[in-house]
């Protein structure tokens, strides 16, 4: 048992070590980065929320596309100018629409999307309750005739 636990722990550690470099941002060109580490971190946070419009399923921080690099540059210019995260994302949305946000805002179009986890949970709870109740239903006692037939079937000789 102890050996198994140790093996699992080792596997976890291995996974974390492998995943760590992947989690770090893709911007590795020091020329792109802001000199101020706090500002650079903020720019990376904003960039991770913006979709690259060329590859469409990567953030501009992760993408190697030319346009993504330009957008990263624009984000850093705005961060250096002291704008808030909200202002910078609004600036992007004004030009490219909500499509550029990897995390869509809550509105009438996205209501179902955002509500889906809760709906799925409720549906699951409903199904589980229904199954549990069915299983708990006890059989009605057998009538005399049924009892007799059961005895006949079980012990045909008597």
């Amino acid at each position, binding site marked *: 048992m102890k050996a198994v636990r140790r093996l699992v722990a080792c596997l976890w550690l291995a996974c974390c070590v492998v995943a760590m470099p992947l989690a770090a941002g893709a911007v590795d060109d020091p020329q792109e980065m802001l000199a101020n580490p706090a500002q650079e971190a903020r720019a990376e946070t904003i960039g991770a929320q913006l979709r690259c*419009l060329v590859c469409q399923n990567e953030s501009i921080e992760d993408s190697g596309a030319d346009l993504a690099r*330009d*957008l990263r540059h624009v984000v850093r210019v705005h961060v250096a100018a002291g704008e808030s995260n909200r202002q910078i994302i609004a600036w992007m949305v004004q*030009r490219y*629409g909500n499509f550029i946000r990897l995390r869509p805002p809550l509105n009438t179009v996205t209501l179902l999307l955002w509500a889906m986890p809760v709906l799925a949970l409720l549906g699951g709870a409903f*199904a589980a309750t*229904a199954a549990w109740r069915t299983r708990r*239903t006890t*059989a009605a006692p057998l009538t005399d005739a049924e009892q007799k037939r059961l005895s006949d079937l079980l012990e045909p000789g008597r």
Partner: protein
Amino acid sequence: MPEAGIPGPGLKGEGVTGRGISRRQVLMLAPLGAAAAAGVGFWSMLSGMGSGRFDPHDIHAPAVNRQVPDFDLPSQAPGTGFSSRQLAAQTSPVLVNFFASWCIPCVLEAQTLAGLGRVLPIWGIAYKDHADNAAGFVTRTGNPYARLAADSDGLSAIDWGVSGVPESFLVLPGGLIRWHVAGPLTPEIIDGGLMPVLRAAPR
């Protein structure tokens, strides 16, 4: 959902039977209903994509019915550069076309633009291009552009909401963007999209 091991006779008794069956019906119908709703949704999306009513890749809706962004771009040989003020000061609609010599669809679009340029003034913006390459491309493809500017760092294009070349914007007098397409102009797009808007535009 599997009924837990109790056969029919066990569920006898008025109330239990009625509730049991209706619940089972609900459980059977719920997935069917959900599947039907999803089916209708998917069908309407797909038919919309077929007819052009719905385009999931049309990511540039915000440009339409907006003023053109502020810009002042230098000349690109063999034309003359222009600014947002000059664009807004026009007295008839202008098509602003972003292109680049390194862009393959732009080569295909060039023939279409040559024909369109006789009906509608086209102002070109060379996107992230070397001046010599852009000049060679325009000359080779028969220069449909009334004016020609260079956006060499591509930052003005971001203000327009451009995500790739070619892209075209119909700009009305006063600088309002009335129509937009992300992708090469084709005779179909011109006849089906641009021309109706142009005819309806105030003169």
